[in-house]
């Protein structure tokens, strides 16, 4: 199983210029709406034509602008799950599933029967799409896609704009797909939780360009790029600057990073996860900074203690006071007086050095 994608496409002012490779498993394409995720899928499926580039699936060239190869969608063996499933309204569930099947009538019938049972659709085969619930429609679409024997499956925001309850209805179908399909899957989403649940590797996209490609654990624990960090939900960033002595420090603070840290030359800022700062000095401190105690809020049996760090330059520009919330057992807040100054520590493993 292998997929090699390298495409360029100009759409009005938007320029897509993307390249990635994928071996096996589920590869997520993560990015904000309008970053070119769907266009990439459409180009791979052959619904849209890239201006230039090359798409190779399992050693079959699907598209190559240099060699003037452009296989029609029918010959690509690429399944595409549309956002709203586009079941054919004039066909029953079973007819929909059989619509892309090859083989004799008896083979189709048997295959359809096993797909219906795989996707929990027994008893629904004679219903029309308008008579099916959202979850059933999704499962018919998945079964229909598998019936056409694709080598690669493209999932375009399969859970977009659905509330939690509906997502719960759709998850079984998706898990069944991963169980029944052995080829590669590309999963497009702007939702980090979905990517985390369903993908093995991720390509982070921004403005039509790939930012970085990494495995799912690394993305959530140690993203390297600023835009990846934003996409996994980190909101506080502090700008780094290089001091005269060659060490890196937080711009506008007098703090410098611990000397032994290997800071990449093009690191631009550090990302602060909620709860990254601690009150006790960890063994391997990356940086420390004095802060002012503001107050607390009670959370169950715990208290969140709020400290104000000095105004720092934000990555986006401008200065702002950074608030750090530190969790402690309830009652701990009585040890602090408003306005009191304490030193906060950031451990090495919690330090996120980001590049732009």
């Amino acid at each position, binding site marked *: 199983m292998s997929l090699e994608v390298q495409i360029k496409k100009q759409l009005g002012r938007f320029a897509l210029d993307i390249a990635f490779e994928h071996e096996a498993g589920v590869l997520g394409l993560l990015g904000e709406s309008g970053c070119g995720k769907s266009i990439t899928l*459409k180009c791979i*499926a*052959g*619904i849209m034509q890239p201006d230039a580039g090359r798409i190779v699936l399992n050693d079959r060239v699907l598209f190559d602008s240099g060699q003037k190869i452009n296989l*029609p*969608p*029918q010959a*690509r*063996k*690429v*399944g*595409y799950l*549309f956002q*709203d499933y*586009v079941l*054919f*309204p*004039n*066909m029953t569930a079973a007819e929909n599933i059989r*619509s*892309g099947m*090859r083989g004799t009538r008896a083979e189709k019938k048997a295959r359809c029967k096993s797909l219906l049972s795989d996707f929990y659709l027994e008893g629904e085969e004679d*219903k*029309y*799409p*308008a*008579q*099916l*619930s*959202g979850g059933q429609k999704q499962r018919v679409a998945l079964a*229909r*896609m598998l*019936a*056409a024997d694709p080598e690669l499956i493209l999932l375009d925001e399969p859970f977009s704009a659905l509330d939690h*309850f*509906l997502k719960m*209805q759709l998850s079984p179908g998706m898990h069944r797909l991963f169980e029944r399909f052995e080829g590669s899957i590309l999963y497009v989403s702007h939702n980090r939780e979905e990517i985390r649940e369903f993908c093995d590797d991720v390509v982070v996209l921004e403005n039509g360009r790939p930012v970085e490609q990494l495995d799912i654990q690394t993305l959530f624990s140690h993203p390297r790029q600023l835009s990846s960090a934003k996409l996994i939900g980190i909101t506080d960033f502090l700008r780094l600057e290089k001091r005269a002595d060659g060490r890196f420090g937080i711009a506008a603070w007098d703090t410098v990073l611990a000397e032994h840290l290997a800071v990449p030359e093009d690191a631009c800022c550090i990302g602060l996860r909620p709860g990254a700062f601690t009150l006790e000095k960890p063994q391997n401190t990356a940086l420390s900074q004095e802060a002012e105690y503001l107050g607390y809020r009670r959370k169950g049996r715990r208290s969140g203690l709020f400290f104000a760090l000095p105004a720092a330059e934000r990555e986006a520009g401008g200065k702002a006071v950074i608030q750090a919330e530190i969790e402690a057992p309830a009652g701990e807040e009585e040890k602090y007086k408003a306005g009191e100054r304490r030193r906060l520590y950031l451990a090495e493993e919690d330090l996120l050095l980001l590049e732009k």
Partner: protein
Amino acid sequence: MINDFSPLWISLKIAFFASLITLVLGVAAARLVCKTEKAKHFLDGLFTLPMVLPPTVTGFFLLILFGKNSPLGRALGKAGINVVFSAAGAVIAAAVVAFPLMYRSARGAFEQLDPDYIACARTLGMKESKIFFRVILPNTRPGLLSGVVLSFARSMGEFGATTLLAGNIPGRTQTMALAVYSAVQNNHKEAAMRWSLIIVVISFLAIFLMNRTMKRYQGTEVFSGALFRADKSKRSKAEEEP
């Protein structure tokens, strides 16, 4: 009193064959225009022309095209087919004049169909011909049906082009519309009134039935299972489920 009912049968026969021809040609023309990019506006103008031209002008061109002096007319004549002053000529005249109505309805229907249906069918590996017959045609039925009814009604009422190409031969090419003309000329006011009323009733019925059918389509969801012999009560239940 009308003794000879031949104009009624001739009209129905001509309208039937003319709408059959426009259905096939109109759908083909609509597909062609939807697919091409370059000549789109040129073709659209060409196909719509018979709707805005005076029917006599259309008839005149058809007369030249199928006349004894044209290559096509001569070739057909050698094959023993005579279009001018024949029922075949009346069918051709009616079909040409009604064609734009069918073409425009079909084009509208094709353009309204969500292109994702076609894209999806392609990714499923369906052949283009299968996509056309199993996906495009069934899901554009309301639009195509209205095109057929409109062209049937238009063919029934065709006068100008028919007179020029097929003439006004009682028992052969005299349709109801032509019968009204002859009756008025011969001062048979009563006969003119009767034929006129029959035309009004038939045309009105056609449009009325079409509207009723369309309303049934749109009553729920244009492309819902209701169209395809599904049980209505079951469907509304399924829709209530989240």
